[in-house]
């Protein structure tokens, strides 16, 4: 079904995109790969008056080393992350996670920045960004600022982005071959995760991100604290659902989701990943 009508802009620079955002404010939606927005526009659940297509900006899809970090342009597509030799070597959790998003066609269109900015708690990539303690670089009329991933998600489909800001880059530390695991539990290959767990080990510690365990992407703080105190993996996994508030729906009751979080964390800690 065709979306409701809108005014379409195709800026060719970030600066132009920001001035359009400033001009149109809440009436405007950004579109990059379009795989979060177009599906709901087709069903007319969303009908923005103005659509600002970032597809005309051609210098925002980099994946490169910058000091101790990997810098990834917001318009890098999931497939670019998935198949990046650099990312596979320096932050393999993120490359793997990009490869379990949606299907090939979706990964050919969807962008890392779009997935992060959408703020959907059932998305995979934000959980791995959480496990990696990444930062989100945003740009607005006043220039750029960096937001830690822990400060970025403020509510269901809500982020710390101002209406006139857009995500321009994602940064994660270079972790090399340190152990990691990504568990995405779903009935069918194309389903969103019923629950997902991202784990990235750190010296004497570890980062753990949770998918679909509350209104936002969550950090498993109790488990992380247990890891730092030297607890066994079983003890760490047992705390996976502490402080979470998963919803119950047809795919899983909240009790089932809490149970899954514990089981999946145990598997992720063992370095096991789902494909």
């Amino acid at each position, binding site marked *: 079904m065709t979306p*409701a009508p809108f005014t379409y802009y195709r800026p060719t620079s970030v600066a132009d995109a920001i001035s359009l955002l400033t001009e149109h404010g809440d009436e405007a939606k950004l579109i990059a790969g379009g795989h979060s927005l177009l599906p709901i526009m087709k069903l007319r659940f969303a009908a923005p008056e103005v659509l600002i297509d970032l597809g005309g900006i051609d210098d925002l899809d980099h994946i490169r080393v910058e000091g101790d970090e990997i810098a990834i342009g917001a318009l890098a597509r999931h497939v670019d992350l998935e198949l990046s030799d650099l990312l596979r070597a320096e932050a393999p959790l993120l490359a793997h996670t990009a490869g379990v998003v949606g299907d090939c066609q979706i990964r050919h269109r969807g962008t890392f920045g779009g997935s992060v900015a959408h703020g959907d708690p059932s998305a995979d990539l934000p959980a791995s960004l959480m496990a990696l303690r990444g930062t989100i670089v945003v740009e607005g009329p006043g220039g750029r600022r960096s937001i830690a991933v822990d400060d970025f998600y403020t509510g269901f489909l809500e982020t710390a982005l101002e209406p006139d800001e857009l995500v321009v880059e994602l940064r994660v530390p270079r972790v090399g071959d340190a152990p990691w695991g990504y568990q995405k539990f779903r*009935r*069918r*290959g194309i389903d969103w995760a*019923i629950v997902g767990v991202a784990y990235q080990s750190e010296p004497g510690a570890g980062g753990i991100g949770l998918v679909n365990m509350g209104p936002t992407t969550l950090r498993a703080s109790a488990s992380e604290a247990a890891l730092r105190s030297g607890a066994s993996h079983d003890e760490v996994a047992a705390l996976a659902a502490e402080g979470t508030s998963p919803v119950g729906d*047809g795919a899983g009751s909240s009790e*089932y989701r809490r149970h899954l979080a514990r089981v999946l964390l145990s598997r992720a800690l063992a370095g096991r990943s789902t494909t």
Partner: protein
Amino acid sequence: MESTTVAPPSGVGARQMRLEDPGLLTGRDRFTSDLDIPGALHAVFVRSPVAHARVVSVDTTAATAADGVVAVLTHKDVDVPRVFFPTFGELIDDAYHRVPLASETVRFVGDIVAVVVAETITQAHDAAELVEVDYDALEVVVDPVAATAPDAPLLFPGTGTNLAVDIPFEAGTRAPDAPVQVHQRVAHPRMAVVPMEPLAIAAVPGDGEKLTLWCSTQMPHVTQGLMALWLKMDPADLRVACPSVGGGFGGKTPAEPDYVLVAAIARHLRRPVRWTQSRSENLLTMQARGHLFDVTLEATRDGRVTSIRSEGLTDVGGYPGLGIGMAMTARGLMTGCYDIPHASHVVRCVATNTSPTVPFRGAGRPEAIHALERTMDRLAAELDIDPAEIRRRNFVPVEKFPYTSVMGTEYDSADFEKTLDEALRLADYEGLRAEQAERRASGDEVALGIGISTYVEVSAGSPGMTGDYASVEVSEDGWATVVAGTSAHGQGHWTVYAQVVSDRMGIPAEKVRFVQSDTDTVPRGMGTSGSRSLQLGGTAVRLAADEVVEQAKEVAAHLLEASPEDIEIVPGVGLGVRGVPHRTLEWGELAAAVADDARRPPQLAPRLFADPGFEQGGGTSPFGCHIAIVEVDLQTGMTTLRRFVAVDDCGVVVNPLLADGQVHGGLAAGIGQVLFEYSAFDDEGNPTTTSFADYGMPSAADLISYDTAHTVTPTTRNPLGAKGLGEAGTTGSIAAVHNAVMDALRPHGIDHIDLPLTPMRVWQALQDRES
């Protein structure tokens, strides 16, 4: 010299590649929505968002004024006929009819209350959002058991009940005081048919009363007859024609209420009108299954079943109709492969405020076999007899065929032990049981389950549909043309019929043209459903081919000055004189000769043409054994299919490549129903599975490659020796997978979980046992 006894490579039994494929693979072939229909308007249906209500008012003012809108129609504007299937006229109250454009009452979410017709599809969608309907809510009943309660809200108050059908049946003699009795309630939930091409139609009025319906259907001639009846038209004025049809699986057998509506509107507006069903409409309104079975088996201590008593409660949705047929078919197969001396069964069909149901792959067969085979496993467990062994002890013995079961169902031929043994061998059943014992002993967190299902069904046995039409004609270019009354939509009839022609006439399959699915060019036909086409259509082709060969022999004998008895087929060439290698006539020459008054033998017509048709008089009984091997993650409840062995017997296989394809598709549907797929409604009758995000249609990533094999027990009901195969995969696989998961969980104290076996349901059952 080439031997005449060697079949050409494209004959019966060859793995002939499909003649259909090049057009489909290149995007050249067209489906209904691809057709260029000049001046066609686009229809969009406004459907009820509430499950049961009185329609107070429909305000079409804003929609009518919207850009591009030609008409916004309600029941007050257009004369829409009531839709009622004559087949069920004897079974149910006349009051249960449906008018495709609802007037006073809506009975399910999706009932149509208005139709917007506009110049473009987007304009029609835009305007449909502006139609305002005022509903006065009525009490809703969704649960089929609740719908049978004396105080349940009634869908058709005039009938005094929601039970549209309530038919008891009993036959045979029940042995008194059976030492063993097991009972199992088996839910067989709703699912969606999901042809990848949804419904689509273009209704094009012609001169006078003439109307052409381009549409996606499995049964063009049946559609023509029913539509003409309902629209009060002369069938001669109504042409029904299908371009490529993107799958049917039973969901495109009815003359859709939607099609009736579009046809009526096109006649009303006197302009071409087209409509393509959206996927959400398809998942909502093309649903099937929906039964609740109670099965009681009585047996001796050594596992001989002496009686089956069963009841089926079938939820046929808001308008009882085709769904009733599935319940009746299921009854006939309730004794399955087993020689049981006594049976009783009650068919009950109940109206609820949910989508009306339609047939789906198997259409009653998988339902019965699933209920029976689940209960057989319960009996095996009760008696501590191996599931394979208990089946073997109860099989109808080979010497009893043809066999009429206590249900009154005739099985023409079968050898159940043969398929069981072959499946056990291919699966390495003993090895699997040993692995299972080992893993159970070691406390493996992933439980291995092995599930067996043995099945028999009846193909091409629907009353009034046990024969079909085909013609064969050879033209002067040496090609044969087959015209068939069956109507393929993925099965590959062109290819297999061409193989039959090749086999009987020596004309290569590549030189066979094919005509089907158009009431203007095919004199008659019953379409394709119920695994009927190869055995009926294929046989009709064979009989026609044989007659044409006889005609051609007379021509050849006449021209070659030989006796017709001495004329033989020279494959790839034409006809020749036996023992005289170079005295041959090509098929094209024969066709030219017969058209030539000077050269035609006087007793022949001027065409090499025959269309004797074929009437089988009854059905045939395909059968088989399926074994599923699953692994159940006891921590998460997730079931993973490890292996699937299917041994099917459909008599003579004309094309092994295509036969396996039929089995594969059938298996996927059965496996899908057990592990992923179900159509659901909430307590208010709101559907919750109307997109592929919610409805669990599996992809390649969720399924495996299957191990398929065939045994061959030919039928004598047709000269091909062939039985149906389209529904076998589904009929056998549901119980196999269900039994496998239950087999994995049995040591954990779980006897039965109803479908679908989602991870949460399995996990919950394990939790419930622990606490």
